[in-house]
């Protein structure tokens, strides 16, 4: 960014943006501005800048135009065809296209958040070292090395109260101090970017939007712990993150930020990417290390803990992307500032990936301690289609659900665990009245069963046995003893499994039974799915009293199983019906059961 740039055009190019055509939009802006000679016309330079994710990926392509006169204006759903018009009106004529502006909810969505980790995401060019430096990049490592000892860096992190953002919530400073205390010359820093929870993508967005801040966090950890090498373990399904991170690493080596003599400070730190092949279990730290070593990604027993005997038998410190991304802010702004955010036990902010039946899905960074209700209703605009909120699954397949009764639970580690859920990596899947909780449990268990590495018996066979029972229940073949069986097994599997995957996999079942036992009972005793979700249990008929004769079901049906004429109540032909649920989803009046 040059000093005299007056107009900045920020184009969101996270994976979401790119897949919606952000590259084409960027090319179009560049072309139009050049061809029209816009710089000359307005007498200022227009910089077209690609940025990382801004959170509301559902509205991509997002384009922010910042100018002196009009301030910051956001346009959403931008297509290349509109670019010329936007340039002409907004930049040349200086008239904001009010109709094309993002709706007010966009600003609500952004303003309700507090961005610490994602400061750079969506603001700076992730592929530019200069952009990062202009934001104060590499000042934290400089401060650490010049003004602080390794021990005081660890103390600062301890004092900040930062806890691991990977899900377990172990105090980061304490973890560092363990690894630092282990004797040995070769130590490793690993960044866990094997984000695998369905629906969670904050680590990806940080790597795509601000890769240098993760690198700097790892460098500081390396300095504090005495590690001279590090790995970033990124799943191969994140090609853009890998590309941007690799570019950043290359630049760092070129400019001397990494290597045998980091920034001339006399300590060595090497960093490289290890691509994971996509096993969910490789997010477990011991399996992750096995994977880096070239072994099959299977968890190893702990103790010994990685801080004592980790990668290749050497002391190793593992944190996730979001944790490392916090470090530079703690060093620069101080532990006290950081500790002032959040709650008593959970400091700082936390990024959540909000998905499901909510109006505005996306990444949300809020101070720890905000209530789940605020996140869903204030930030994300509430439930889509004006349906009723039922529950929110926090912590992905390892977490549990939070029902409406306890919607005011604050989002911090301990409150979520108390509620029977967990922070996990920060996935929030919002469910409405059409979501069947038995089916939700089945879905998550199917995922964990699939991703079990197959090493320990409770996880490998136990999850399959539990899934069989759940499937039976959703198909109307449940037995009266099933709930007790599930509870018993779930409790034992949690206690008996080898790694975090098995130890948490029964959580979705246990928490749905805890809060929605009546749904299980309805499936088992009445052979009914109260949410009309389990196909085998639907009656496949139209409820005449509820039908408003709109014909939406007819249009949705792919097999002509609906009979409807204008002004008539629809009828469903069970012979023809393939139970695809298209009509059910299309009916906004819940008239099909």
């Amino acid at each position, binding site marked *: 960014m040059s000093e005299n740039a007056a107009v900045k055009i920020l184009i969101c190019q996270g994976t979401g943006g790119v897949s919606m055509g952000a590259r084409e939009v960027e090319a179009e802006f560049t072309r139009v501005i050049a061809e029209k000679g816009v710089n000359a016309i307005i007498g200022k330079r227009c910089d077209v800048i690609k940025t990382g994710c801004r959170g509301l990926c559902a509205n991509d392509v997002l384009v922010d135009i910042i100018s002196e006169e009009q301030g910051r204006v956001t346009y959403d759903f931008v297509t290349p065809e509109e670019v010329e018009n936007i340039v002409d009106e907004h930049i040349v004529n200086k008239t904001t296209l009010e109709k094309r502006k993002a709706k007010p909810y966009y600003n609500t969505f952004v303003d309700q958040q507090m961005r610490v980790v994602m400061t750079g995401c969506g603001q700076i060019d992730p592929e530019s070292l200069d952009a990062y430096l202009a934001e104060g990049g590499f000042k934290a490592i400089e401060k650490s090395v010049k003004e602080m000892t390794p021990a005081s860096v660890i103390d600062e992190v301890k004092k900040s109260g930062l806890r691991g953002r990977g899900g377990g919530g172990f105090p980061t400073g304490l973890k560092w101090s363990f690894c630092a205390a282990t004797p040995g010359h070769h130590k490793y820093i690993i960044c866990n970017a094997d984000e695998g929870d369905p629906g969670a993508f904050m680590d990806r967005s940080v790597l795509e939007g601000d890769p240098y801040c993760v690198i700097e966090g790892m460098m500081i950890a390396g300095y504090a712990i005495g590690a001279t090498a590090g790995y970033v373990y990124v799943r191969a399904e994140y090609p853009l993150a890998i590309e941007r991170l690799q570019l950043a690493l290359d630049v760092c080596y070129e400019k001397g930020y990494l290597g045998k003599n980091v920034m001339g400070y006399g300590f060595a730190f090497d960093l490289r990417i290890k691509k994971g092949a996509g096993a969910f279990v490789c997010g477990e730290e011991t399996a992750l290390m096995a994977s880096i070593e070239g072994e099959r990604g299977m968890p190893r027993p702990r103790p010994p803990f990685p801080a004592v005997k980790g990668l290749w038998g050497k002391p190793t410190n593992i944190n996730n992307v979001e944790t490392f991304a916090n470090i530079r802010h703690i060093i620069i702004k101080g532990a006290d500032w950081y500790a002032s955010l959040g709650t008593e036990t959970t400091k700082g902010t936390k990024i959540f990936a909000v998905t499901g039946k909510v109006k505005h899905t996306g990444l949300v960074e809020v101070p720890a301690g905000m209530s789940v209700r605020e996140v869903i209703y204030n930030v994300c605009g509430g439930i889509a289609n004006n349906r009723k909120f039922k529950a929110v699954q926090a912590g992905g397949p390892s977490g549990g659900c939070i029902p409406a009764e306890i919607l005011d639970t604050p989002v911090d580690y301990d409150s979520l665990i108390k509620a029977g859920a967990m922070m996990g990596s920060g996935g929030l899947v919002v469910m409405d009245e059409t979501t069947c909780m038995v089916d939700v449990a089945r879905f998550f268990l199917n995922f964990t069963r699939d991703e079990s*590495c197959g090493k320990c018996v409770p996880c*490998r*066979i136990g999850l399959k046995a539990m899934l069989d029972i759940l499937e039976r229940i959703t198909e109307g073949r449940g037995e009266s003893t099933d709930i007790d069986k599930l509870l018993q097994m779930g409790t034992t599997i949690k206690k008996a499994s080898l790694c975090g995957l098995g130890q948490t996999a029964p959580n979705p079942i246990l928490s749905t039974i805890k809060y929605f036992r009546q749904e299980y009972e309805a499936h088992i005793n009445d052979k009914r799915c109260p949410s009309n979700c389990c196909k085998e249990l639907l009656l496949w008929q139209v409820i005449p009293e509820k039908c408003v004769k709109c014909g939406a079901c007819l249009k949705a049906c792919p097999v002509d199983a609906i009979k409807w004429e204008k002004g008539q109540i629809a009828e469903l032909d069970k012979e023809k019906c393939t139970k695809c649920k298209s009509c059910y989803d299309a009916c906004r009046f819940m008239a099909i059961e």
Partner: protein
Amino acid sequence: MVNLTIDDKQVSVAPDATIFDAAKAAGIRIPILCHDKKLHPFGGCRMCLVEVEQMKGRLIPACTTPVSEGMIVRTATDEIMTARKLVLELLLLKHPLDCPVCDAAGDCDLQNLTYEYKVNANKFTDEKFHWDIDYENPLIERDQNRCIHCGKCSRICDEIVAFGAYSFVNRGIEAKIGTPFDGKLDCEYCGSCISVCPVGALIAKPFKFKARWWALKKVQSVCSYCGTGCQLTLGVKDDKVLTTIYDEDQGFHNGQLCGRGRFGYQFINSEKRLTTPLIRKNGELLPATWEEALQLISARLGEQKSADASAVAALVTPRLTNEELLLFRKLFKEVVGTDSIDHSAGYAHAALTEGLKESFGITASPAVIADIQKSNLLLVVKTDAYETHPVIGFEINLGAKRKGLDLRTLSDKSGKLSYLPGAKNYVHKPGSELLLVNALARVLIDNGLADTTANGFEALKSALAAATLERAAAVTGIPAETITSLATDYAKAEKALILLPLGLAYPGHGKELAQALANLAILAGKIGKEGCGLLILGEKNNSQGAADLGIHPSANGRNAAAIIDGCISGAVKMLCIAGENPVVSYPDRAKVEKALDAVPFLVVQDLFLTETARKADVVLPVKSFAEKCGTFTSAGRNVQRIRKAIKAVGQSKSDREIFSELITRLSGKAVAADAVELFKEIVATIPGYSGLDYEKLGDTGCVYPVSIAAQLVPVTAAEPAGEEGKFALVIGSSLYHNGTMSRYGKGPMLVCSEQYIELGRADAVRIGVKEGDSVKVKSVSGELSLPVKVGRRMPEGVVFAPYHFDISSINSITTGSPVTYVTISR
């Protein structure tokens, strides 16, 4: 020591112990399925879960969790029992209940635990697996449906055998133990995986449907193949040895065996065993009584003794027990009065009987097997140490993979050891090893790394004048700086050990090589200390015993080679052979056959009608090691007992009985023939054995001590006379065979049944042949047509052949030099 409480018992254990170890020490049994003390902790089966007061909230695996001070452990609470029962129920959900036809029934950990935990009903239902059973491997049958995923097969194959035939594949319920690309199990057939499999997923094909485990009588013995001295448990039923049984507490090797030890036992009850004495009448060997046969032999021995005792010669295999060897020596040296006795030492064991005798004043290695893992640097001369002594190979694997042992191999070809992590290989031109070792010694002297006070230093120094680095580099093909760095590393290592296998497979300069290596060790001061020294690995189960008992000519007698010559020249009039098979195993087959045809009276006592026995005038059937008692002495000087497991096959007598009867007939005096009595005599007469007691040898045996008088002995190295355009043929041992006896074991023959020649890839391409094709191999002494094996380990211009086989035996074209130059054509 760490103190903890387990089930209210106070226990004190070493700090590196696990809760499982501590419980075991306190006499508390914790059930396990996936744990094996030899392997890295795994923690997969979750049977060993216990409760730890300090780690509340979850159940703790006892087998992987280290103890800590003040731990309070409970091993059998209701919650633990529920969890263990759930684990068993879940396993049985998938494990087929085909126990009636499963070979493991009775020896199955899952079966036993199911019984113990009374899991008589399952609250779950599911389909069983339907994986295809792998019948392709000749020795190992693999039924994945029975697998419980303990991973032991995969782990042992990787961690100890260092082969890696198995790995976990797939995820979740679909996970299984796989082979590369789901192909057939391709491995080195040691069967370690079978031994550790807790269920019947892996079974030994030769034992399939042979007997139920509870019907087997278990007899502890010692393997009768190579000189490693592995302990063995024989599984016996109806006077037949039906299998070998794994016992993880056995021996230094923790019950680990190689393929021939585990699968090669069938020679014991082979249908080919001799059952009666045979006497040649009208050119044909016909059954006879023992009285006839022994009468005939003692008469001939008596006649020859009166005429010229020195015209009697005798050869014995070092497979016999120490007690039998004692009687053998007594019979021929004292009663008959000939000094012409040998055990192929002239060809193979001179390294011990002559070499170390001069260098150390003893006929045994100064080092023992336990030194391997205590050493920092291990120099293996001839990578074949793995093939000749596979279980010692496992020790090397463990050293290199777990203890950071700096492994160096010095050989004319690569081998399995060359591919271990961190191994550095020095591949020299065939036949140049002596010069190479001399050059290493000279580097030590030149660089001030040598002990100048060693006996004979000056003489050695001047003798090494010719072993310059330049010459060594030119002759061996290894750069001078590499030789220097090897010598320096060896000298500077805190503890360094040298390993040298020997045997009939390595003809030529065994004695000189052993002495050159002894010089190196003495110069570097790597002698007489733990983890240091020289360990010479005798080829046969009792090679060390034969050396100890002096089974070689002491003064003017003929050694094995001279006996063969004597037969041809007519100087030897009567030859007695006990267990040796010179026709196939001694160099120059044509000459050996000529000698045996020429000798006027030939007696052979053996298990089988071998190629040598067929030429005899009298053949005596003898007992195998499973039919008798006695002691074997292993390469590491461990004196161990073998025990009678079955009654004699046919009318066979032990060699001990035969020798003692002959002594009685010839001398008119009775002689002690009982193993215990004979052992007492050995203890009284053989210096190293003094103080040993037959009964006290017990199950583990006893390593006898040695005292060393180190003496540097100059050794001159002849340069190998490479021949232009010819291949250098080196012989050795196949991994699956040992000597010629393993040919009568079904297991070894299933995986390696015929003579072959191994070529490097480039040579195979040059000659235009591929694996399995036949080539003509021609040396100055003969020509053979042999099938080709193509491997990555052979350097260009060097070819390899094992020596065990009768048909197209490789000794038809070799004459006993270290290297034979041959032409090879299609």
